[in-house]
C-alpha cells in the first residue's frame, strides 16, 4: 500500500479542466516533484492535497485513509509557499512556534522544538529577528522550519525558490536535499524548472495540460521519454519531422522530406503508416564524424555554425532536407578546432538514443 495516494483527481473550474485523472502513488520518505509549465495542473493538485481546493472527482488517501473530509487546519500537512508567507508581526522564533502554540503545547516543549527546527535550517541564533529584516533566502528557510516543526507526514512545496536568484536557489536546493535526508519527510515539490527537479527528486511526475505525461526518476525521463512533451521538457532535444513509412515489431521506419529513411526507431504514441512523426535527438547524445557513420543511425549534414561555450561547443548542423539540429561536443573532442562552416560531415548516434514520436 502506498503512503500517499493521489487517486484519479479531476478538478474543473467553470469549463476549464485544471487536472484530469491525476493518479500517483508516493512512498513514505519519497521526494516527488511535479514538473510542468504554468497552468499544467501541478499547483492545483498540490492545493487539493493541502485542502485549499476540493476536487471535482477523485480521492486523496494518506496511509489508506481519505483526507478529503478533513479541513486544511486539521490535516497536519506542512507547506512552503512560492511567496513569502512569514507572519510579519512575529519574530522568527514566534513564527516557528506558531503551529505549536495553536496545538496548545507546553512552553518548554515549544522552546525545545523551535530551537531544533532553527538549527535544522541553520538559522540558530536568529530567533529574535523580524521577518522584514531578513533576505528572501532566509525567509524561506524560516518558512521551511515552520512547516517542519510539527513533524507533518507530508511536506508540500509550491515553487519555494522561484523568487530567489540563481546562486541562492542552488544553495537552498542543497539545503533542501540535506533536510530531506536528515528528516526523512515525504515531500511533494512543485516546480517548472527541470534542473531543480532533476537535482532534488527521487521521482518526477511531468505535468502537461492537466495530465501526468510520465512518472519516473530523472535518468528514466531523460533516457526514455514516453511522450514528445517529456522529451522536449526534460533535457535539450531537437526534433526532425518525418512520416511513418511502415511499422514492424522492431520499430518504425521514418521517411524524411528528401527521401532519407531511418529504420527500427522506437515509436511512441499512436502512430500509423502515413502519419506524421518526429525523430528526437539530444545534442549531447550525438557525435560528429568525418567518416560514413554508423549504419542506420547516422545522417550526412552540413555545418552551419560553431559556438564555443567553455566546457563544450555547440554545432548547428543542417540535414540534407534542410532542418537544423544541434550537436554538443565536449571540450577536447578531436574534431573541435577543425570544424568550419560549410564542412560536410556525418552525425551518428547509438540506436537507443533515437526516439520517434507520432504527432496527433
Amino acid at each position, binding site marked *: 500500500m502506498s503512503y500517499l495516494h493521489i487517486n484519479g483527481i479531476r478538478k474543473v473550474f467553470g469549463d476549464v479542466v485544471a487536472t484530469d485523472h491525476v493518479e500517483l502513488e508516493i512512498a513514505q520518505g519519497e521526494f516527488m516533484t511535479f514538473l510542468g509549465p504554468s497552468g499544467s495542473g501541478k499547483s492545483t493538485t498540490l492545493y487539493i492535497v493541502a485542502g485549499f481546493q476540493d476536487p471535482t472527482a477523485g480521492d486523496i488517501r494518506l496511509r489508506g485513509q481519505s483526507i478529503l473530509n478533513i479541513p486544511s487546519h486539521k490535516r497536519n500537512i506542512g*507547506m512552503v*509557499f*512560492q511567496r513569502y508567507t512569514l*507572519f*510579519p*508581526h512575529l519574530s522568527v522564533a514566534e513564527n516557528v512556534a506558531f503551529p505549536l502554540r495553536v496545538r496548545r503545547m507546553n512552553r518548554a516543549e515549544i522552546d525545545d522544538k523551535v530551537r531544533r527546527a532553527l538549527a535544522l535550517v541553520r538559522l540558530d541564533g536568529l530567533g529574535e529577528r523580524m521577518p522584514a529584516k531578513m533576505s528572501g533566502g532566509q525567509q524561506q528557510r524560516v518558512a521551511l522550519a515552520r512547516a517542519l516543526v510539527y513533524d507533518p507526514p507530508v511536506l508540500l512545496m509550491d515553487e519555494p525558490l522561484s523568487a530567489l536568484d540563481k546562486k541562492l536557489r542552488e544553495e537552498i536546493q542543497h539545503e533542501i536535499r540535506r533536510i530531506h535526508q536528515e528528516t526523512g519527510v515525504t515531500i511533494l515539490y512543485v516546480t517548472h524548472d527541470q534542473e531543480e527537479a532533476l537535482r532534488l527528486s527521487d521521482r518526477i511526475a511531468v505535468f502537461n495540460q492537466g495530465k501526468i505525461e510520465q512518472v519516473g526518476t530523472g535518468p528514466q525521463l531523460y533516457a526514455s521519454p514516453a511522450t514528445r512533451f517529456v522529451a522536449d521538457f526534460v533535457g535539450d532535444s531537437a526534433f526532425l519531422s518525418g512520416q511513418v513509412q511502415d511499422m514492424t515489431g522492431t520499430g518504425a521506419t521514418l521517411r524524411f522530406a528528401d527521401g532519407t529513411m531511418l529504420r527500427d526507431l522506437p515509436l511512441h504514441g499512436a502512430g500509423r503508416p502515413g502519419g506524421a512523426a518526429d525523430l528526437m535527438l539530444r545534442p549531447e547524445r550525438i557525435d560528429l564524424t568525418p567518416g560514413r557513420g554508423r549504419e542506420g543511425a547516422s545522417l550526412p549534414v552540413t555545418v552551419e555554425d560553431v559556438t564555443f561555450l567553455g566546457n563544450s561547443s555547440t554545432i548547428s548542423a543542417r540535414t540534407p532536407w534542410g532542418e537544423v539540429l544541434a550537436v554538443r561536443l565536449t571540450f577536447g573532442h578531436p574534431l573541435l578546432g577543425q570544424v568550419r562552416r560549410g564542412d560536410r560531415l556525418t552525425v551518428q548516434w547509438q540506436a537507443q538514443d533515437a526516439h520517434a514520436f507520432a504527432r496527433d
Partner: protein
Amino acid sequence: MLMNFDKLGTWRWVLAGIAVLMALFLLLPIVFIVALSFGDSRWLIFPPPGWTMRWYHELFADPRWLQSAWTSARIAVVVMVLSVILGLLASFALVRGQFRGRAVLRAFFLTPMILPVVIIAVALYAFFLRIGLNGTFTGFVAAHLIVALPFSIIAITGALKTFDPAIEDAAILCGAHPWEARARVTLPAISHGVFSAAIFSFLISWDEVVLAIFMASPTLQTLPVRVWTTLRQDLTPVIAAASTLLVLLTVVLMIVAALIRKGKSR
C-alpha cells in the same frame, strides 16, 4: 518626476511662496481662534489687547459644556467601535470575496462620502421621526456611523489589499482554524489600517455638526452643536476656548495616526 525642484532656479522661490500662502490660508483661522481663546477682550478683538485664562475657567465651570463634551465622547467612541467592526467585515467581503456586483457594493458603501451631508441629515430626520429615534443616543450613533463607515472601509481595505492571503493560508495549514488565523495573523498584520479606521471614525463623529444639529434635542447635545447654538445667542470667547480644545484633541489624534503610519513604513 517631471519637474526637479532643485533645478527650477528662481521658480522655486515662487513655488515656496505659494506653498507658504496655502499653509497660512489653511492654518490662520485656527491660529486666530486659539489666540482669541486666550485674549482678555469680550468682543473677540484681534490682536487681543491682553491675555487671560478666564474663558477656560468659565468653560469648565459651566456643566452644560462638560455635559455636551461627555456626550460627544460617548457617541464618538461607540461610533468608532461599530465603524471598525462593520468596516472589517465589509472589507473582507470587498477584498477577498468573489461575487457579482462587488464593485457596485463598494461604490454603494462609499456614497455617504460623496452625498451632501445635509441631504443625508434631512432624510435621516424624516426617517427617524417615523421610528422615534430623533434626539436619542442611538439616533446620533446611527447618523454618525453612516458618514464614518466609508472612511473606515477605505482604511481597512487599503491595508487588507497589501496583505497576501497566502500568509493566512500558511497559518491555516499550520493548524489554526480559519477564524483563529484571521484573529492571530491577519488582524495584527493590518492593525495600522484598523487603527487609522478607528481614529478617523472617532474624529468624524467628534467634530460632525450638520447631522448633529438635526439629531440634537435640548437634553442631548454634542460639543459642536453646543458651539453652534451658543454662537447664535452670544458671541463669547468661551466658544473660542471650546473650539481650541476640539482642535487640540483632533491634532493629537492626527499625530497619533501619523506616527502609526510612520511606524508601519519603518
